[in-house]
Every structure is written in C-alpha cells, then in structure tokens.
C-alpha cells in the first residue's frame, strides 16, 4: 500500500516528557538526581555579570584623556557607590576643580587613558531556572542545570505568544467548536489555564488579562485580533518573549476553526479532576524556522489517572488509506477527513503547478484532491 509521511502535532494522553532546564551561563545546580520537583521549584541559579556603564570621565572634567590616570580617585577593581567622585581635575592654581561622580553603583572595570573612558560594572544579576513541570530529576548537568522527567499528557499547539506559566486548568467552553468570547471569562479564573473551543476573540483575551488569567488555550484566533492584542502586526513566528501578561496557545490555526475534539476532551478530563482542575505547564514560545519549536501544554500524570484508551494506531507519521487528516491550506483550510486514495503520479493543480496529491473523503461526504504538502496527520 502506498505510504507517505507528513508531520502532525502531538496530542497525547500519555507521553514521556523531558525538559532540559539549563542556565544561560554556568552556575549552581540546586537539585540532585532522583529528587522529586514541583513545577515552580528553582532547580538552578547563577549570577551574570552586571550591566556595564561607560563614563566619559575626561570629557566631563574637560581634561585630555592622557591626564586621567593622575586625576582618578579610585582604581581598577574598586567598588563605588552612585554619586561617589571618580576623578577630580586640578583646576587652575587649585581653583575651579571639577569632579566626575559615578552615575551608578558598581566596580571599576577599566580606566582608559586613550579615550578617557571609565567602564563601571554593576552588581551581578541573579538568574534562576525553575523545574517548569512536576517530575523527577533524571540527570544533572554540573554547573548548567538538570533534566526533569515526567510522564505527562502532552498537547502541542500550532502557534502561541507569551512564555512559560503554570496554573490549574479551567474550561470556559463546553464544546470543542464553541467560540471563546469575553462573556465566558469569569473572575474565578485568576491564575488559571483557561480552555476555549473554537476561535478566541480579542475581547475575550482582554477580559482574561483583566481577570489575571495565566494562559488561554483555544482552537483559532483572527490575525486582526492578534494584532490588537500585541499592539503590532506580527512579522515572523518567533515568539515567547511578549510582555502581555498572559500566554496564548492556539491549537489549530488562524480564523474560525474548532479545537480538535480529542484535544478538547483530553484537557476537559483534567479540568474536571479535583476541585480546581489539575495544574498544567504552558509555554507559548513558538519558533517556526529550522529546528521548529511549537507551543505546548504539559500535565504531569499521577498514578491514580485513568489509563488512556489504546486504540489501533497507525505507524507514527505514516499516511495510508483511511488515515485521519486535517487539510491545512485554502480552499479547504481546517476541514477534516480520511485519506481515500494515494496516487503515486504527480497531478496538475488548479494553480497550474505539478505536485504529488492525495484524495480525501471529507466529513460531509465530498471527495477532494489536495497536494500532499497541504495536509496534516491527526493522531487517533
């Protein structure tokens, strides 16, 4: 039987999840192999060199750079406080002496008699790395960080904004195809990972920001709404550092599109668990370049969690007759169906280009031919 391979986003009730939690520069690792950690625990800490402030001392004193050495009141390596005089000019016959005060606290890193510039290094800045998910330390990278391992329910989104956050799951929509609008955001969703169904509106995001929601997960979003939320038109899909007070994960794409039923059901199951919903770790960071990074929702599993149903699964990534697929390009964007034929010969498309295609039987009974590049596998 003809087979093809196409990437799909991962939606799994049970997967081994590993997070490499590394410091940007060497530092101290606070955990050891085998430790149980919670998502909010700090696993490694370091200090990076403080900010640098150049001070044009000789020009402030009005003296040649070459004279600076004899006028300095502090020397290389000295600690100084803000306002402390760094150098003093001799004046004329001892009169009209000028001083150059330090604009910030720090340490004198260098004194240049070529440029008359003094480089001031500020206090070290702390950098901490948290565990991000509940789990166990599987490996420690000395001076760098740790590998956290857990068994988790794992959902990959297609696009997101905002960075890492943790909170309990709360369902705003009752159906996977229900749009998420402002009326569905409630005050008790503060700090929660709010799950919608289809398209989330800009008004809903604003209401969520006002309510202090940690993250929103929904099927689609309009580009014009995203522009309104960010305050600018997003040019390239490299996100994660937005400072908008909320993380957003879109599971399917732009426009009116419902969340995949399976994804919705999976999240809903964890929202019903316990009084306030199970905690999820969410990251909106997306990088669609070589080495793709997609946004994610991770929920660490507990031994008491029900075993996920084990259906017959196709070989991962394999495309064959009957495989469930989503069409990901206009004119059929967002439609679901199953593969009904995999012709091996390329076909001429409506655009005039030649490409390898497949036939898909849509949910409404129609049969359409689409390029193989324009479908995505849905794991069942």
């Amino acid at each position, binding site marked *: 039987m003809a087979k093809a391979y196409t990437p799909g986003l991962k939606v799994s009730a049970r997967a081994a999840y590993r997070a490499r939690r590394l410091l940007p520069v060497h530092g101290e690792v606070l955990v050891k192999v085998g430790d149980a950690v919670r998502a909010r625990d700090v696993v490694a800490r370091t200090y990076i060199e403080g900010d640098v402030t150049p001070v044009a001392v000789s020009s402030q004193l009005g003296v040649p750079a070459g004279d600076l050495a004899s006028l300095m009141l502090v020397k290389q390596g000295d600690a100084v406080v803000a306002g402390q005089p760094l150098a003093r000019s001799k004046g004329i016959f001892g009169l009209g002496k000028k001083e150059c005060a330090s604009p910030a606290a720090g340490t004198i890193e260098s004194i240049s008699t070529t440029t008359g510039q003094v480089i001031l290094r500020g206090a070290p800045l702390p950098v901490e790395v948290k565990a991000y998910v509940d789990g166990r330390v599987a490996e420690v990278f000395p001076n760098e960080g740790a590998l956290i391992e857990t068994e988790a329910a794992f959902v990959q989104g*297609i696009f997101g904004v905002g960075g890492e956050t943790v909170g309990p799951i709360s369902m705003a929509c009752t159906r996977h195809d229900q749009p998420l609008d402002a009326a569905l955001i409630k005050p008790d969703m503060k700090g929660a990972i709010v799950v919608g169904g289809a398209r989330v509106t800009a008004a809903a995001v604003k209401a969520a920001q006002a309510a202090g929601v940690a993250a929103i997960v929904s099927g689609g979003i309009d*580009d014009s709404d995203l522009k309104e939320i960010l305050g600018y038109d997003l040019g390239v*899909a490299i996100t994660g550092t937005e400072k908008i007070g909320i993380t957003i994960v879109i599971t399917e794409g732009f426009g009116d599109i419902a969340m995949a039923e399976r994804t919705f059901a999976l999240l809903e199951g964890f929202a019903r668990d316990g009084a306030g919903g199970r905690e999820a770790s969410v990251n909106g960071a997306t990088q669609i370049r070589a080495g793709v990074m997609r946004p994610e929702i991770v929920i660490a599993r507990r031994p008491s969690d029900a075993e996920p149903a084990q259906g017959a699964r196709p070989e991962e990534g394999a495309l064959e007759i009957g495989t469930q697929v989503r069409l990901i390009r206009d004119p059929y964007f967002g439609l679901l169906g199953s593969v009904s034929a995999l012709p091996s010969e390329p076909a001429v498309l409506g655009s005039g280009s030649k490409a390898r295609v497949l036939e898909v039987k849509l949910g409404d009974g129609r049969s359409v031919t689409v390029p193989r*590049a324009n479908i995505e596998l849905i794991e069942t």
Partner: protein
Amino acid sequence: MSAPSHLSAHSVPAIDPSKLRYILATDCGSTTTKAILVERVGNGWRQTQRAEAPTTVEEPFADVTIGVSNSLTEIGELAGRRFIADDGTIIRRKGADDPDGCDLYISTSSAGGGLQMVVAGVVAQMTAASAKRAALGAGAIVMDTIASNDKRKPHERIQRIRELRPDMVLISGGTDGGNVQQVVQIAEQIAPAKPRPRFGGEYELPVIYAGNKDAAPQVRGIFGKGFDLAVVENLRPTLEQENLGPARDKIHDVFLEHVMAHAPGYDKLISWSDAPIMPTPGAVGDILQRIAARDRLNAVCVDIGGATTDVFSVFDGTFNRTVSANLGMSYSISNVCAEAGLDKVLRWVHIDMDERELRNRVKNKMIRPTTIPQSAEALVFEQAVAREALRLAYAQHKEFATTLKGVQQQRTVGDLFSQQASGQTIVDDMRLDLLVASGGVLSHAPKMEQTAAMLVDSFEPQGFTQLAKDSIFMMPHLGVLASVQPEAAMEVFERDCLVRLGWSVAAKGEGKWGKKCFSYRVSGAVSATGELACGDVALVRVGPEQEVEVTVEPAKEFDLGAGPGKPVTRRVKGGTVGILFDARGRPLMLPENPADRRAAVARWANLWETR
C-alpha cells in the same frame, strides 16, 4: 575586473585540468543538501545530474557528511557510477578506466544558520557601512551594526551586544593616521560586553580588527583573554578608498578555521573537500562577479527564500550584496505583508479577495510554511506577495549599494549640471543588463511568463534588460567550482545554469494613460511591429535560439536607453518567454481607482500570458 580578491588568498590544490572528468559539488543548506555532478562531455563541461537529501547537521545525526553522502549516493545511482564507498566516504577515481569515483569534490555551506556576525565602526554611514559591506560580501548574516552614532546610548549598545551570540565580530573605524580615540572607544564597549559565541564552551570569540592601523596596539590590549583577535589592513584606509579584500579574506579564514570546525561533522567535510568550503551566498556573489567581469555586464541576482531574500549586484565592477532578513515567502510571509501593507500586496491582484480571510491565510502559511498554493486564486495572491517582497528587498539593496559616503568629490564645471552627492546608489536600472532570478516562488512558478512578469513588476528595469533564472539553484556550486576550475564553472553557467527568459524593454518616464509611449519593430527570425500607449504592455515571442533586431522609438517624454525621445536599436537573442514590451512608465504607476486597477492588472496578465 579581476576575480574576487579573496580567492587568491586560499591555497588551492594543483589539479591538472586535462585529467578531470567528474566533479561533484554540494551545497549544504539549513534543511537540504543539494548535490550536482559536472561532467566533461566531449570537449566541454555539462551539469548532468542533481540530487538532494535532508541536511544532517542537527541532532539526532549531528554530522553534516551523512547528508552529503546521501545526496552523492543518489547522484551515483542516477549517473550509474559509485561515488560513495561502503564506509560513507567519497570514492576518488584511480585512473581513466576506473568505473567509480570522482576527480574533484567541493562544497558550500549555509547549514546551522550560516555565518552570523556583529560588525562595528565609528560612523554608521562610513566605516560601519564599509564593515557591513565586507561581512555581507563574505556571505555573512549581519546581526547588528554598532556605531558611535547609531542613536543608542553606550549602555544600550553594550546590552544589545550581550544579547547576541555571533560567530565573530568585525571592528573597523578611523582612517589610517586619523583619530585613534573613537575606534578604541568602540572596542572598549565591545570587549566588556563579552559577546558569547554560538558554540559556547571553550570557544574563543574571533574578533577581526580592520580599522585605523595606529589604534591596533590599543585594540590588542583591550581584546585579551577570551577573544581570538586578528588584525588586518584597514578596510577604509582613506575616506575615498574602500579596501574590503583583506577583511573578507580573514572572515572566510575564520569561518573555516573556527566556525566550521565547531559545526558537527565539518572537520570531516573540510578534509573531503578539494577547495575551501565557502559560505553559500559568498559563492553566489563570486560567480556573479566573474560573469559580470567576463561579459562586461551590470548584473543583479535575487534569491528569494522562505525566510530571507538575498540581492547581489555588480555595477561597473563594484559588487554588493544585501540580505533582507525577514522578507520571504513562508516563514517571513507575514512580515512582507506587515512591512509593505496589505493594500500594496492587493494592488497586484485582479480578483476580489476578503481582507480578513487573507490576513488569516497569510498567518496560516507562516505557521505551516511547507504548504503550497492549490488554487489559481491562491497562486495569484502568493505571486502578489512575492512582488512586494522583491520590491522591498531591491529598495533595501539600492539604499545600501552606494558610492562611499563622506567623500568630498572634486567637481568640474560640467558636473554642475549633474551634481551627485556622495552616498548615491550605484544601482542604475537603466544600465542594468542582466537580471537573474532564483528561489522557489520564482524558479518553480508554473509558467515562465509568471517569473518574468514578477521580475519586471518588482525590479522595474528600464530600457533593455535581459531576464534569466537559475534553473536549479546551482550558482553556489558554480561559485565554489570557479575557485578551482573557472573555465568549467563558466561553461556550465552558460549552458545549464541560466535559463534565459527573454528581455524586458521598458520606457522610463511618466505620461497620461492612452497617450503614445513608444513604438517597436522586431525583425530577423521573428517579425512584429506595434505602438504602445501609456499603460500598455505587449509580448513578442522570440525563442532562445532566435536572434532579432529590435528598434524602439519613444515619445519625447520617454527614455529607452538613448535619452528622452531617442530611438534605440539592439540585436538580441530571445528566451523561453520572449520580449516583454512595457509602456507602463517608470516609476511604475498603477491606477488609483480599485476597479480600474483590477482591470489593468487583468489586462496585463492576459497580454503577457501569465494566466
């Protein structure tokens, strides 16, 4: 013009050209490794096979040579000759009768994000601009340009440098014998920022100093431990002179010795290769320079990719390259629309489209970049975006490719009538002889007419300009081949690389629509005559092997190369499309009224047979 200067700096193995028969070349891109086989056929050289395989520089393979071996294995299967041994290495031909192996293997690379640099100079428009030109010309991606007058406060500049992770830093500044203080000040800001190299660990960040030679001792003192400093000749020894060769050479050396050596598998790849591995865009620039020098042409080449668009130009022997980092057709498609404005994109579309839906479509392409247009409507929109991406990239290129800024020009009385300030663009659309297209949306357009029309609409060439496309993007391979076997490279370039599309014959000037713009007469292998009113276009089919004489007579407001109102006669060889006559004026003006505009765009599409 001689060959690109840096080529002479590398040691090239002595190869007897008469013994060569099979040459393999690869280009290791970020996602795909493309291989070609160049063979001696009869007395000449031809590109005979091509193959590709996924690049294997990332985990789980982390060895670039695996992808190279895979692509060369496929080439071997196509050619009926074994090039890869069981141990994965390249087989060398032992004698004239050896049924396996090659005689020469060479490669370019842009894998792992290519060569990423930070450049610095004292004045943004002068030494820093020269440093940027040197880095871009060597094939680098310039992450940031630091200058004393870049409108940032010193601490902001330092903060920025700290955030970047360059492969190397190039510092220039000051003319020889001039002010020392300013360039030392720049060095003093870069050193404490301690930019962390991409490869981390024990890697010492390479810093190339190409500024005022009198400041070199102080610069050496500043870049001590943690840096690998190299001092080369000043790239701006005087204000009137730019000397980019030594800095470019050093960039290539450092690229090979440091950057490449740290990328997975490159030590092996370097040992396989018979010539130094070149950064991909550097190789494209080199072959373009050679062609321009040999044929005495002014040429522009564009490569539009998913994320970036590269523009290369050679005018009067001066080479320039720019990279528009966020103008592209998949990853960057949304940025093209944001930067140009959706209204600018839609002016190339002759059918009604809903803006909200289009915005969502653009973003859906951005997040699923591998999808392809299925319907005719989707293709029209994609090619409209391409026109704007190309237009913006070319505008950026023109802004960058200028005469040296800060130069006091000596003028004669005659110059008073054509005064040009320093810093003018050297890209002259009227003097452009050859425009070469490459990159998916241009190379894989369903119709060659569409490629030609996209080039004309976005570059707006004036007068007579030959249009061509790189058949299978082999300019990088030929660029590196030219460094060891220039004749073979030039021959393959002519015979197999370039697909001649034809000519754009376009009038410069503005006029009222409907009034006469120019008349044309084509004679020889093909005969045709016509008169075009402003706003009209026409296509005369002249095949690649057909030669014709073309005479154009413009109205007095229009110029086709000889001056306003003056006729021009040229003998030209045709192409797969033919001759596109264009009386839409320069700058190209589209009707403001949407209905008129749509009608005009539809008419042009019909006349140039792009539909």
